[in-house]
Protein backbone atom coordinates (compact mmCIF):
# COMPACT_ATOMS: atom_id res chain seq x y z
CA UNK A 1 0.00 0.00 0.00
CA UNK A 2 1.23 3.51 -0.78
CA UNK A 3 0.17 6.81 0.67
CA UNK A 4 1.26 10.34 -0.07
CA UNK A 5 1.29 13.56 1.93
CA UNK A 6 -1.56 14.88 -0.23
CA UNK A 7 -3.37 11.82 -1.59
CA UNK A 8 -4.09 8.28 -0.50
CA UNK A 9 -3.77 5.28 -2.76
CA UNK A 10 -5.27 1.98 -1.70
CA UNK A 11 -3.75 -0.16 -4.45
CA UNK A 12 -1.32 -2.79 -3.21
CA UNK A 13 1.03 -2.57 -6.16
CA UNK A 14 0.65 1.06 -7.17
CA UNK A 15 3.45 3.49 -7.93
CA UNK A 16 2.97 6.84 -6.29
CA UNK A 17 4.55 9.87 -7.93
CA UNK A 18 6.01 12.06 -5.24
CA UNK A 19 5.57 15.71 -6.25
CA UNK A 20 8.08 18.47 -5.70
CA UNK A 21 8.16 19.29 -2.00
CA UNK A 22 6.03 16.28 -1.17
CA UNK A 23 6.63 13.01 0.62
CA UNK A 24 4.99 9.61 0.52
CA UNK A 25 5.22 6.16 2.08
CA UNK A 26 4.71 2.68 0.69
CA UNK A 27 4.62 -0.82 2.10
CA UNK A 28 4.98 -4.41 0.84
CA UNK A 29 4.47 -4.20 -2.94
CA UNK A 30 4.08 -0.46 -3.46
CA UNK A 31 6.68 1.85 -4.98
CA UNK A 32 7.49 5.54 -4.92
CA UNK A 33 8.83 7.59 -7.79
CA UNK A 34 10.07 11.12 -8.38
CA UNK A 35 12.14 13.21 -10.82
CA UNK A 36 15.22 14.98 -9.55
CA UNK A 37 17.28 17.77 -11.04
CA UNK A 38 18.78 20.03 -8.41
CA UNK A 39 16.35 18.68 -5.80
CA UNK A 40 17.31 15.72 -3.59
CA UNK A 41 15.31 12.55 -3.05
CA UNK A 42 15.46 11.31 0.53
CA UNK A 43 14.71 7.57 0.64
CA UNK A 44 14.17 5.99 4.04
CA UNK A 45 13.64 2.22 4.37
CA UNK A 46 12.75 -0.34 7.04
CA UNK A 47 13.95 -3.70 5.75
CA UNK A 48 12.21 -6.15 8.13
CA UNK A 49 8.81 -4.48 7.85
CA UNK A 50 9.19 -3.52 4.17
CA UNK A 51 8.26 0.10 4.75
CA UNK A 52 9.54 2.80 2.38
CA UNK A 53 9.40 6.58 2.52
CA UNK A 54 10.45 9.14 -0.09
CA UNK A 55 10.63 12.93 0.23
CA UNK A 56 11.39 15.36 -2.60
CA UNK A 57 13.54 18.00 -0.91
CA UNK A 58 13.85 21.44 -2.48
CA UNK A 59 15.50 23.63 0.17
CA UNK A 60 17.69 23.04 3.22
CA UNK A 61 15.80 24.83 5.98
CA UNK A 62 12.09 25.08 6.73
CA UNK A 63 10.48 28.36 7.73
CA UNK A 64 8.59 28.45 11.02
CA UNK A 65 5.44 26.91 9.57
CA UNK A 66 5.19 25.17 6.24
CA UNK A 67 2.35 23.17 4.73
CA UNK A 68 4.95 21.13 2.84
CA UNK A 69 7.30 19.46 5.34
CA UNK A 70 8.75 17.26 2.60
CA UNK A 71 10.09 20.36 0.85
CA UNK A 72 12.82 21.09 3.41
CA UNK A 73 15.68 18.88 4.50
CA UNK A 74 15.25 19.58 8.20
CA UNK A 75 11.48 18.95 8.22
CA UNK A 76 11.41 16.07 5.73
CA UNK A 77 13.34 13.75 8.04
CA UNK A 78 10.97 14.03 11.03
CA UNK A 79 7.96 13.98 8.69
CA UNK A 80 9.04 10.69 7.12
CA UNK A 81 9.92 9.17 10.50
CA UNK A 82 6.46 10.11 11.81
CA UNK A 83 4.72 8.68 8.73
CA UNK A 84 6.67 5.41 8.88
CA UNK A 85 6.13 5.13 12.62
CA UNK A 86 2.41 5.39 11.98
CA UNK A 87 2.60 2.67 9.32
CA UNK A 88 4.63 0.47 11.64
CA UNK A 89 1.74 0.52 14.16
CA UNK A 90 3.85 0.20 17.25
CA UNK A 91 6.59 -2.01 15.84
CA UNK A 92 10.17 -0.87 16.33
CA UNK A 93 11.82 0.78 13.32
CA UNK A 94 15.39 0.33 12.15
CA UNK A 95 15.70 2.87 9.37
CA UNK A 96 18.40 3.52 6.80
CA UNK A 97 18.60 6.41 4.38
CA UNK A 98 19.82 6.92 0.84
CA UNK A 99 20.20 10.22 -0.99
CA UNK A 100 19.74 10.80 -4.71
CA UNK A 101 19.87 13.91 -6.88
CA UNK A 102 21.33 17.36 -6.30
CA UNK A 103 22.60 17.73 -9.87
CA UNK A 104 24.14 20.88 -11.26
CA UNK A 105 22.67 20.93 -14.72
CA UNK A 106 23.85 24.33 -15.93
CA UNK A 107 27.61 24.71 -16.14
CA UNK A 108 27.49 28.44 -15.44
CA UNK A 109 26.24 27.92 -11.90
CA UNK A 110 28.95 28.96 -9.45
CA UNK A 111 29.42 28.49 -5.74
CA UNK A 112 27.75 25.79 -3.63
CA UNK A 113 24.59 24.76 -5.38
CA UNK A 114 21.25 24.30 -3.66
CA UNK A 115 21.65 20.58 -4.36
CA UNK A 116 24.87 20.44 -2.37
CA UNK A 117 23.29 22.46 0.42
CA UNK A 118 20.32 20.08 0.52
CA UNK A 119 22.59 17.03 0.76
CA UNK A 120 24.53 18.60 3.63
CA UNK A 121 21.34 19.60 5.43
CA UNK A 122 19.88 16.10 5.01
CA UNK A 123 23.03 14.44 6.32
CA UNK A 124 22.89 16.66 9.39
CA UNK A 125 19.19 16.04 9.99
CA UNK A 126 19.61 12.27 9.52
CA UNK A 127 22.57 12.21 11.87
CA UNK A 128 20.52 14.01 14.54
CA UNK A 129 17.77 11.42 14.05
CA UNK A 130 20.23 8.55 14.29
CA UNK A 131 19.55 7.28 10.76
CA UNK A 132 22.66 6.19 8.83
CA UNK A 133 23.09 7.17 5.18
CA UNK A 134 24.05 3.86 3.59
CA UNK A 135 24.50 5.02 0.00
CA UNK A 136 24.01 7.95 -2.28
CA UNK A 137 23.98 8.99 -5.95
CA UNK A 138 24.33 12.76 -5.89
CA UNK A 139 25.80 15.56 -7.96
CA UNK A 140 26.74 15.29 -11.59
CA UNK A 141 25.05 17.20 -14.39
CA UNK A 142 22.06 15.03 -15.31
CA UNK A 143 18.48 14.65 -14.17
CA UNK A 144 17.33 11.45 -12.55
CA UNK A 145 14.12 9.42 -12.37
CA UNK A 146 14.20 7.61 -9.03
CA UNK A 147 11.99 4.69 -8.04
CA UNK A 148 12.00 3.11 -4.57
CA UNK A 149 10.48 -0.36 -4.18
CA UNK A 150 8.93 -1.19 -0.83
CA UNK A 151 9.21 -4.95 -1.40
CA UNK A 152 12.99 -5.00 -1.27
CA UNK A 153 14.16 -1.41 -0.80
CA UNK A 154 15.80 -1.28 -4.20
CA UNK A 155 16.25 2.15 -5.74
CA UNK A 156 16.37 2.37 -9.52
CA UNK A 157 17.97 5.52 -10.91
CA UNK A 158 17.41 6.29 -14.57
CA UNK A 159 19.30 8.96 -16.48
CA UNK A 160 19.02 9.80 -20.16
CA UNK A 161 21.55 8.06 -22.32
CA UNK A 162 22.85 5.74 -19.59
CA UNK A 163 22.01 2.33 -18.20
CA UNK A 164 19.92 2.37 -15.01
CA UNK A 165 21.81 2.38 -11.74
CA UNK A 166 20.69 0.56 -8.62
CA UNK A 167 21.22 1.44 -4.98
Amino acid at each position, binding site marked *: MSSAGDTADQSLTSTISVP*IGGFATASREGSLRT*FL*GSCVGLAVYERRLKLAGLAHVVLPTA*PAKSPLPGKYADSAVPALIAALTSLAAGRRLQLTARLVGGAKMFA*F*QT*GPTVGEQNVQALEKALSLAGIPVVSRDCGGGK*GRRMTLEAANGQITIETLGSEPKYL
Partner: protein
Amino acid sequence: MSGTPLNRYLTACRSAASLASDSLSKWLGRPSAISIEQVEAMPLEKAIGLLGDHEGTVCGCGMAISGSLQGILVLLCDDQAGLALAAMLLGREPSDDDTWGDLEQSAVVETTNIIGCAYLNAMADSTGADTAAMPSPPWFLRDFAPAVMQSIVMAQPLTGETVFLTRTEFTIEGSPARVSLVFVPAEDASERLPGAPA
Protein backbone atom coordinates in the same frame (compact mmCIF):
# COMPACT_ATOMS: atom_id res chain seq x y z
CA MET B 1 6.15 43.93 -7.52
CA SER B 2 2.62 45.17 -8.07
CA GLY B 3 0.59 48.12 -9.28
CA THR B 4 2.34 50.62 -11.51
CA PRO B 5 5.81 49.02 -11.40
CA LEU B 6 4.32 45.66 -12.36
CA ASN B 7 2.42 47.25 -15.24
CA ARG B 8 5.62 48.89 -16.46
CA TYR B 9 7.42 45.56 -16.19
CA LEU B 10 4.62 43.85 -18.12
CA THR B 11 4.92 46.48 -20.84
CA ALA B 12 8.68 45.92 -21.00
CA CYS B 13 8.19 42.14 -21.18
CA ARG B 14 5.60 42.43 -23.96
CA SER B 15 7.86 44.68 -25.98
CA ALA B 16 10.81 42.32 -25.47
CA ALA B 17 8.70 39.30 -26.39
CA SER B 18 7.49 41.03 -29.55
CA LEU B 19 11.07 41.80 -30.61
CA ALA B 20 12.09 38.24 -29.82
CA SER B 21 9.21 36.98 -31.98
CA ASP B 22 10.35 39.22 -34.85
CA SER B 23 13.88 37.88 -34.48
CA LEU B 24 12.61 34.31 -34.48
CA SER B 25 10.58 34.94 -37.64
CA LYS B 26 13.56 36.42 -39.43
CA TRP B 27 15.85 33.67 -38.16
CA LEU B 28 13.58 30.85 -39.31
CA GLY B 29 12.39 32.59 -42.45
CA ARG B 30 8.73 32.12 -41.51
CA PRO B 31 6.26 34.02 -39.31
CA SER B 32 6.13 33.36 -35.60
CA ALA B 33 3.57 34.53 -33.06
CA ILE B 34 3.30 34.73 -29.31
CA SER B 35 0.86 32.20 -27.88
CA ILE B 36 1.48 32.43 -24.13
CA GLU B 37 2.67 35.34 -22.05
CA GLN B 38 3.10 34.79 -18.36
CA VAL B 39 4.61 37.22 -15.90
CA GLU B 40 4.06 36.40 -12.26
CA ALA B 41 5.47 35.55 -8.89
CA MET B 42 4.64 31.99 -7.92
CA PRO B 43 5.58 29.39 -5.33
CA LEU B 44 8.66 27.37 -6.20
CA GLU B 45 6.59 24.22 -6.66
CA LYS B 46 4.33 25.89 -9.22
CA ALA B 47 7.31 27.35 -11.11
CA ILE B 48 8.96 23.94 -11.24
CA GLY B 49 5.69 22.48 -12.54
CA LEU B 50 5.41 25.16 -15.25
CA LEU B 51 5.42 22.60 -18.05
CA GLY B 52 2.53 20.71 -16.49
CA ASP B 53 2.57 16.98 -15.87
CA HIS B 54 4.91 16.47 -18.79
CA GLU B 55 7.43 13.82 -17.74
CA GLY B 56 9.09 13.38 -21.12
CA THR B 57 12.27 15.05 -22.24
CA VAL B 58 12.71 18.70 -23.02
CA CYS B 59 15.61 20.62 -24.44
CA GLY B 60 16.82 23.67 -22.65
CA CYS B 61 19.47 26.15 -23.58
CA GLY B 62 20.32 28.50 -20.76
CA MET B 63 22.38 31.63 -20.33
CA ALA B 64 23.33 33.35 -17.10
CA ILE B 65 22.69 37.08 -17.45
CA SER B 66 24.80 39.75 -15.76
CA GLY B 67 25.19 43.50 -16.05
CA SER B 68 22.16 45.77 -16.19
CA LEU B 69 19.85 42.76 -15.95
CA GLN B 70 20.61 39.66 -13.86
CA GLY B 71 19.15 36.22 -13.82
CA ILE B 72 18.85 33.20 -16.05
CA LEU B 73 17.30 33.06 -19.49
CA VAL B 74 16.35 29.69 -20.95
CA LEU B 75 14.93 28.54 -24.26
CA LEU B 76 12.75 25.44 -23.83
CA CYS B 77 11.27 23.13 -26.40
CA ASP B 78 10.32 19.49 -26.74
CA ASP B 79 12.28 17.04 -28.89
CA GLN B 80 10.03 17.51 -31.91
CA ALA B 81 10.44 21.29 -31.86
CA GLY B 82 14.17 21.14 -31.22
CA LEU B 83 14.74 18.81 -34.16
CA ALA B 84 12.45 20.92 -36.34
CA LEU B 85 14.58 24.03 -35.73
CA ALA B 86 17.61 22.58 -37.50
CA ALA B 87 15.47 21.39 -40.41
CA MET B 88 13.81 24.79 -40.81
CA LEU B 89 17.13 26.64 -40.63
CA LEU B 90 18.51 24.46 -43.40
CA GLY B 91 15.44 25.04 -45.54
CA ARG B 92 14.06 21.51 -45.42
CA GLU B 93 10.97 19.92 -43.91
CA PRO B 94 11.39 18.09 -40.57
CA SER B 95 11.34 14.34 -40.84
CA ASP B 96 10.47 11.59 -38.37
CA ASP B 97 13.95 10.26 -39.02
CA ASP B 98 15.63 13.37 -37.62
CA THR B 99 17.79 12.59 -34.60
CA TRP B 100 19.83 14.64 -32.16
CA GLY B 101 23.33 15.43 -33.35
CA ASP B 102 25.78 18.32 -33.22
CA LEU B 103 23.89 20.25 -35.91
CA GLU B 104 20.54 19.97 -34.13
CA GLN B 105 22.12 21.00 -30.83
CA SER B 106 23.86 23.93 -32.53
CA ALA B 107 20.51 25.02 -33.98
CA VAL B 108 18.95 25.22 -30.51
CA VAL B 109 21.99 27.04 -29.11
CA GLU B 110 22.10 29.61 -31.89
CA THR B 111 18.34 30.17 -31.70
CA THR B 112 18.79 30.88 -28.00
CA ASN B 113 21.56 33.35 -28.80
CA ILE B 114 19.53 35.18 -31.38
CA ILE B 115 16.13 35.47 -29.76
CA GLY B 116 17.60 35.61 -26.28
CA CYS B 117 19.78 38.59 -27.16
CA ALA B 118 16.85 40.36 -28.85
CA TYR B 119 14.78 39.84 -25.69
CA LEU B 120 17.56 40.92 -23.33
CA ASN B 121 18.49 44.00 -25.32
CA ALA B 122 14.88 45.16 -25.25
CA MET B 123 14.56 44.47 -21.51
CA ALA B 124 17.87 46.20 -20.74
CA ASP B 125 16.85 49.22 -22.83
CA SER B 126 13.73 49.47 -20.69
CA THR B 127 15.86 49.93 -17.58
CA GLY B 128 17.59 52.90 -19.18
CA ALA B 129 20.88 51.48 -17.94
CA ASP B 130 24.21 52.58 -19.36
CA THR B 131 25.60 49.07 -19.45
CA ALA B 132 24.28 46.20 -21.48
CA ALA B 133 22.83 42.95 -20.20
CA MET B 134 25.56 40.39 -20.82
CA PRO B 135 24.74 36.75 -21.45
CA SER B 136 27.13 33.90 -20.67
CA PRO B 137 27.85 31.40 -23.45
CA PRO B 138 24.72 29.28 -23.84
CA TRP B 139 24.59 25.87 -22.18
CA PHE B 140 22.55 23.15 -23.87
CA LEU B 141 20.87 20.34 -22.03
CA ARG B 142 18.28 17.75 -22.84
CA ASP B 143 16.74 15.92 -19.92
CA PHE B 144 13.55 14.97 -18.04
CA ALA B 145 11.24 17.99 -18.04
CA PRO B 146 10.75 18.14 -14.24
CA ALA B 147 14.52 17.94 -13.69
CA VAL B 148 15.14 20.75 -16.18
CA MET B 149 12.56 23.01 -14.54
CA GLN B 150 14.00 22.37 -11.07
CA SER B 151 17.40 23.41 -12.31
CA ILE B 152 16.11 26.56 -13.97
CA VAL B 153 14.16 27.72 -10.93
CA MET B 154 16.89 26.77 -8.44
CA ALA B 155 19.86 27.92 -10.55
CA GLN B 156 20.52 30.98 -8.45
CA PRO B 157 20.43 31.71 -4.73
CA LEU B 158 16.93 31.95 -3.28
CA THR B 159 15.92 33.11 0.15
CA GLY B 160 12.17 33.16 -0.32
CA GLU B 161 9.44 30.71 -1.12
CA THR B 162 8.41 32.34 -4.38
CA VAL B 163 10.08 33.01 -7.67
CA PHE B 164 9.25 35.71 -10.16
CA LEU B 165 9.37 34.52 -13.70
CA THR B 166 8.46 35.50 -17.22
CA ARG B 167 7.49 32.96 -19.83
CA THR B 168 6.74 33.60 -23.49
CA GLU B 169 5.74 30.79 -25.82
CA PHE B 170 6.14 31.23 -29.57
CA THR B 171 4.37 29.34 -32.32
CA ILE B 172 5.87 28.99 -35.79
CA GLU B 173 3.80 29.12 -38.94
CA GLY B 174 3.54 25.84 -40.77
CA SER B 175 5.02 23.87 -37.89
CA PRO B 176 3.64 22.26 -34.73
CA ALA B 177 6.85 23.35 -32.99
CA ARG B 178 6.49 25.56 -29.94
CA VAL B 179 9.40 27.28 -28.29
CA SER B 180 9.34 28.98 -24.88
CA LEU B 181 11.60 31.65 -23.50
CA VAL B 182 11.72 31.75 -19.70
CA PHE B 183 13.44 34.53 -17.77
CA VAL B 184 14.01 34.17 -14.03
CA PRO B 185 15.47 37.39 -12.60
CA ALA B 186 17.98 37.08 -9.79
CA GLU B 187 16.20 37.53 -6.48
CA ASP B 188 18.47 40.32 -5.30
CA ALA B 189 18.33 42.21 -8.61
CA SER B 190 14.60 42.79 -8.69
CA GLU B 191 15.11 46.50 -7.98
CA ARG B 192 16.83 46.74 -11.35
CA LEU B 193 13.94 45.24 -13.27
CA PRO B 194 12.15 47.54 -15.69
CA GLY B 195 9.36 49.23 -13.84
CA ALA B 196 10.89 48.83 -10.39
CA PRO B 197 10.87 52.01 -8.30
CA ALA B 198 14.06 54.02 -8.81
